[in-house]
């Protein structure tokens, strides 16, 4: 993990779209008055004719994306996670997922790490909402390298995908040679004292905790869950067998997201305890992102504490 080099996954997304636009002329990008914040302005600059700013009208944006996809385009629709999965939930369900249309929903500013904007903008339920829709693939990437891979991969895959992206800049974890595949978690370390299943911005926190715990002689593995659906059953069961403790960590309500997805696999196969770290069924609040991670007890320190207990 390169702590020196920090980049927000929304930035990686914006840059990857430009590359994709060069390779694939079917790619169309949409936003709802958030071109700057979602970094889709980078694509807009290169390909103004394949860029659609619908104004402040997220539901309409999802409908337009569905129509574009039905005509063979590959639309990437982007806004804040709150207004994508939240505001336009039913458009996504009925106009995109039900007809299984090839729309890529790229939702930035997810989670508590949105910071100062506060509860109305801190989407803590999107993984839950998107995960329960049939046909939907749900992803949440953890760094620059992984996000750039995901954008390319999503364009190759035919079907609706929801990608959760962050506002805050986070360390680059993977080098260019790292291989990824949709639906396969990435195990970092061989530790058997605990498994830290983490997704998105929580992966660097888990990696920091892994380092701290190592000094204390506690050896944990981190599992980066970039695909929430389909969930990687094999990896979950393997870790349940090999490690003493299982912990899930997400910048999301503990109900319905990563913790729930892992629990579902465990209860049906080898019932055992899972400690779910995340937002404990509450709304967010204003504050600096890093202060909020501490306040909601999902920072490195809180993770270490949970492992030690």
């Amino acid at each position, binding site marked *: 993990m390169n702590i020196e080099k920090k980049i927000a996954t929304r930035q990686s997304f914006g840059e990857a779209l430009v590359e994709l636009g060069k390779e694939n002329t079917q790619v169309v990008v949409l936003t709802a*008055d*958030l071109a700057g914040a979602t970094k889709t302005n980078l694509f807009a600059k290169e390909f103004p004719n394949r860029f659609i*700013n619908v*104004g*402040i*009208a997220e539901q309409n944006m999802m409908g337009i994306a569905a129509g574009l996809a039905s005509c063979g385009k590959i639309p990437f629709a982007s806004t804040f996670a709150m207004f994508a999965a*939240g505001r336009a939930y039913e458009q996504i369900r009925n106009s995109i997922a039900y007809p299984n249309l090839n729309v890529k929903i790229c939702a930035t500013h997810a989670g508590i790490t949105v910071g100062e904007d506060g509860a109305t903008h801190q989407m803590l339920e999107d993984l839950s909402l998107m995960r329960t829709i049939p046909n939907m693939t749900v992803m949440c990437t953890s760094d620059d390298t992984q996000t750039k891979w995901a954008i390319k991969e999503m364009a190759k895959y035919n079907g609706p995908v929801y990608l959760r992206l962050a506002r805050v800049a986070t360390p680059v974890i993977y080098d260019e040679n790292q291989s990824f595949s949709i639906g396969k978690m990435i195990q970092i370390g061989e530790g058997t004292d605990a498994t830290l299943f983490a997704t998105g911005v929580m992966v660097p926190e888990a990696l920091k905790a892994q380092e701290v715990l190592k000094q204390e002689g506690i050896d944990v593995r981190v599992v980066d869950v970039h695909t929430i659906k389909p969930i990687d059953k094999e990896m979950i069961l393997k870790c349940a067998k090999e490690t003493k403790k299982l912990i899930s960590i997400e910048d999301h309500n503990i109900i319905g997201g990563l913790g729930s997805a892992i629990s579902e696999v465990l209860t049906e196969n080898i019932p055992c305890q899972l400690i779910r770290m995340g937002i404990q069924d509450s709304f967010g609040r204003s504050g600096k992102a890093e202060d909020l991670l501490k306040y909601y007890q999902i920072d490195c320190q809180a993770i270490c504490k949970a492992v030690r207990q």
Partner: protein
Amino acid sequence: MKITKVEAIQTIANEIRRDIIEEVYSAQSGHPGGSLSCSDILAVLYFNQMNIDPKNPNAPARDRFVLSKGHCAPALYAALARKGYFDQELLTSFRKLGSNLQGHPDMKKVPGVDMSTGSLGQGVSAAVGMAIASKMDHEGLRVYCLMGDGEIQEGQVWEAAMAASKNKLDNLCIIVDYNDLQIDGTIEKVGGLVDIKEKFQSFGFHVIEVDGHNIEQLIHAFDSAKHQKEMPSVIIAKTIKGKGVSFMEGKVEWHGKAPTQAEYEQAMKELKNEEE
């Protein structure tokens, strides 16, 4: 207490602008542009028009105000503090961890906030609900709802407009802060929503157009709205985003950005009250 002197209201509007800069500067985040453009509107509403009592913020028959464009919370907080709802000193805690002054208004945390907002297009439906409830209880109160010109691109706004005229909500008055800017550029370029006046007219609204920085015109407009029977009113207030701070005026980049120390000092200098 109702203030009628135009100059006195102007002075309050200017104080609100100073507070906005103070809030956004101390938070180092927030939305100065749209807050500055609606300061005169809020000064007129809170100090000349609305039937409210800061000592009794939950009085059932009080007039209601919904800041549908919730990102302009700095302006609302400034008006509420000045009116006496809470201590002025709290303003610098805006957007900080532990403060009740959230990035977007929270009705459970701040006295005087009648609706929690922040997701654009939703406040107006709540305002329609308040106006209907008031009619049911024969309370005779008025409901005011401030919206952005970008915000009214949300489909929900027109669903609300339809409901307002169908229910003959003459106790509802929407104000559109027509500053001609949203985040990605001008209203016409991004949203393409033109002929706002004609649109509201065809939805059954009494439409009043004013200069949103002219206190006298605003007072007349609100008074005229009160006399409308059986139909809702909308005041389309032509404004300048960032009004009052030369380098912010008409500049889209000041939608959601905090000033540096030098910019802060410059802004406060420009907003000094003339009589001082």
